[in-house]
């Protein structure tokens, strides 16, 4: 049964933006030289210490119960990665993806943080939320860890909003420079979840062509040519967001990767902090039209530390401005 907060007397109350994280995001250590590293989260914490962010409501990301991962993953896969967890050092799951002793707890807190944010936003305790955890999640498929990701955080949170809270329609918007193949895999046959992803093509993981549209036509892939920037990004996202408005989601989840930034070493697009501000405003416009402004955003990629800090700051600042 949906429990959605309604505004009083037609007026929208001022609500806050939540910021959820946990220290295990700092103990998920990757081998020396790995781009998905602890310093990414430290750069985000430093950027959000600025006075502009004093009103962020900071909370600890709880660990999701083990069963929550079953919303997206095969039991055999979960058992296999739990068994593979090392006592020290690392277990490689693929050439990119490593588990340290606390990595799985960190991944479960990324899921738990996103689900707690969904709870708070649907209960009307907050307008929006940003979950800053690592490892990221959008490459993890139903039975395969890949691309630095262990659990499909945002897809699991979408299924949680649908099945636990009883929502009818949820949108997942992904602007990481890499295609969210894992989210697509987990939501391929889910007509209640619309998934939109923009990403550089060609680039890892090789999926995300425009003709990949899901089992119900509910998946929209927006491949972007290498070297393109904010102009081209806006040109594909404006009509895509209009399609999402027609879908009328009751909640918007965001896979917020910041590696389309022009300074990022793993991507070849030319977005700037202003572009992250633009797309966040566009998402908030949509959320205000469709679902009383409810937006839950989770960190995915972003590997240039200065660009990551500045871009997350631009994203969160807009979420806060639009919460009041």
């Amino acid at each position, binding site marked *: 049964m949906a429990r959605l907060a309604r505004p009083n007397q037609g007026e929208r109350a001022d609500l806050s933006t939540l910021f959820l994280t946990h220290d295990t995001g700092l103990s998920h250590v990757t081998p020396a030289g*790995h*781009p998905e590293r602890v310093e990414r989260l430290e750069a985000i914490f430093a950027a959000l210490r600025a006075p502009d962010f004093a009103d962020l409501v900071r909370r600890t990301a709880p660990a999701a119960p083990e069963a929550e991962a079953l919303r997206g993953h095969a039991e055999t896969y979960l058992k296999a990665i739990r068994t593979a967890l090392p006592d020290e050092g690392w277990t490689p799951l*693929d050439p990119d993806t490593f588990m340290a002793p606390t990595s799985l707890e960190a991944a479960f807190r990324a899921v738990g943080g996103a689900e707690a944010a969904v709870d708070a936003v649907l209960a009307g305790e907050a307008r929006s939320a940003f979950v800053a955890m690592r490892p990221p999640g959008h490459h993890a498929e139903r039975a395969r860890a890949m691309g630095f990701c262990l659990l499909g955080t945002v897809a699991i949170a979408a299924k949680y909003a649908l099945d636990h809270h009883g929502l009818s329609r949820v949108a997942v918007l992904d602007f990481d420079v890499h295609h969210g193949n894992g989210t697509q895999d987990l939501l391929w046959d889910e007509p209640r979840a619309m998934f939109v992803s923009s990403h550089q093509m060609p*680039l*890892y993981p*090789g999926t995300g062509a425009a003709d990949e549209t899901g089992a119900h036509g509910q998946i929209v892939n927006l491949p972007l040519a*290498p070297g393109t920037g904010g102009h081209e990004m806006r040109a594909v996202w404006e009509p895509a967001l209009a399609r999402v408005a027609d879908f009328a989601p009751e909640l918007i989840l965001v896979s917020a990767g910041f590696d389309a930034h022009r300074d990022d*070493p*793993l991507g070849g697009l030319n977005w700037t902090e202003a572009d992250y501000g633009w797309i966040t405003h566009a998402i908030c416009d949509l959320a205000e039209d469709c679902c009383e402004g409810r937006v839950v955003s989770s960190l995915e990629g972003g590997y240039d530390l200065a660009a990551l800090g500045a871009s997350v700051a631009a994203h969160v600042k807009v979420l806060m401005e639009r919460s009041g």
Partner: protein
Amino acid sequence: MSDIAKMSFEEAMKALEGVVRDLESGNVELEKSIALYEQGARLKAHCEKKLKEAEEKVAKITLGPDGAPNGITPVEGL
């Protein structure tokens, strides 16, 4: 052959096809994917340069000063 500038058109095309195949296969590591794309872009630029040079050579053959074919004029670098 790693020195792209010394590749023939055929060699560069073959290498470019390999890069595209790898990128589309999904088996390239995330961390190495951008470097592979950049190698592909250099190969593509080299192929385009070779094609342009060939087009110029054809133009020299087919267009004389009076607009009629009048033999082959050597083109520098070919």
